[in-house]
């Protein structure tokens, strides 16, 4: 029960961001926009287009999804190598 409360609290905190918007028109911009680029522009420098610009339409969604899938697979693969599943003892009498 205690574990469930902890899991639901962490999940709730993580999901609270996209669901609620306590400061009104929260834009959910990254700190690159709200901090780094803001100060850079004040100093007369602005961000350039990346060498391979995947920030076009839904292309960025695709590459993020691909990166998540490949990264997730790698994590899962190495996790299984390092932490093999525990064997469940089966009672033959049952």
């Amino acid at each position, binding site marked *: 029960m205690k574990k469930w409360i902890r899991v639901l609290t962490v999940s709730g905190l993580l999901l609270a961001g996209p669901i609620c918007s306590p400061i009104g028109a929260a834009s959910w911009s990254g700190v690159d926009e709200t901090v780094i680029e803001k100060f850079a522009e004040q100093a007369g420098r602005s961000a350039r287009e990346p060498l391979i610009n995947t920030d076009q339409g839904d292309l960025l969604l695709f590459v*993020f999804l691909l990166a998540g899938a490949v990264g997730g697979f790698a994590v899962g693969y190495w996790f299984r190598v*390092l932490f093999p599943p525990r064997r469940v003892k089966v009672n033959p009498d049952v």
Partner: protein
Amino acid sequence: MIDHRLPIRTILAAAVLLCALPSPAFAMHIAEGILPLPWALLWYAVAFPFVAWGLRDLRRRSREAPWFKPLVGLVGAALFLISCMPIPVPTAGTCSHPSGAGIAAILIGPGLTAVVASIALTLQALFLAHGGLTTLGANIVSMGVAGAWVGWGVFAAARRFGLPWFAAAFLAGLFSDWATYATTSLELAAALHGEGSFTTMFSLILLAFVPTQLPLGILEGFLCAGALKFIRSRRPELLRAVPEGGAA
């Protein structure tokens, strides 16, 4: 027999994925072109010895323990995912990401954290419009060097002062996250203060990070402590090289 841990993991994984999916376009590293060329080169020069040392460390430690390469693979992939996952911070209305450098430094050492961070940051700069190639050196220094060494140092110091594992790991995660963004502030202020005061600009940038990174640092502290607790309960031998307050 039903494994009761499965739904718990599924819920956590779903929550993390749901947070990661809606806003992939926002990067948190220093973007391409923001640093002037001399500063970009300087940060490359600062990062290089740490990465080279980490690579040497990988060869040596892989010979000593067969499980070490899989551990580096796991930590590298996790660091890549963590450092490109935007997490919304309701108190600030913005998104940012944990660095993952604290737990990486505890598990594989600060030298190798620089190596895995440089690989993760290069992939992000090339394919995810996240960071940049000219600013790669600066981003490696803030995340893979400063974040890693601070996390590792805080963990070692906390253990030496007799703090329990969980508390030491929490502090390592917390301070490695804050150190990453403090170093980013320093890099930006050093390159962009112009005729103005470096200290003023550094303080202003650092303060601007606070509403987002203060809660995220706490989240990273718990992530770091949770991961270490899990490894200690399942395979404590993986933590043989973890600092007890002395050895690197």
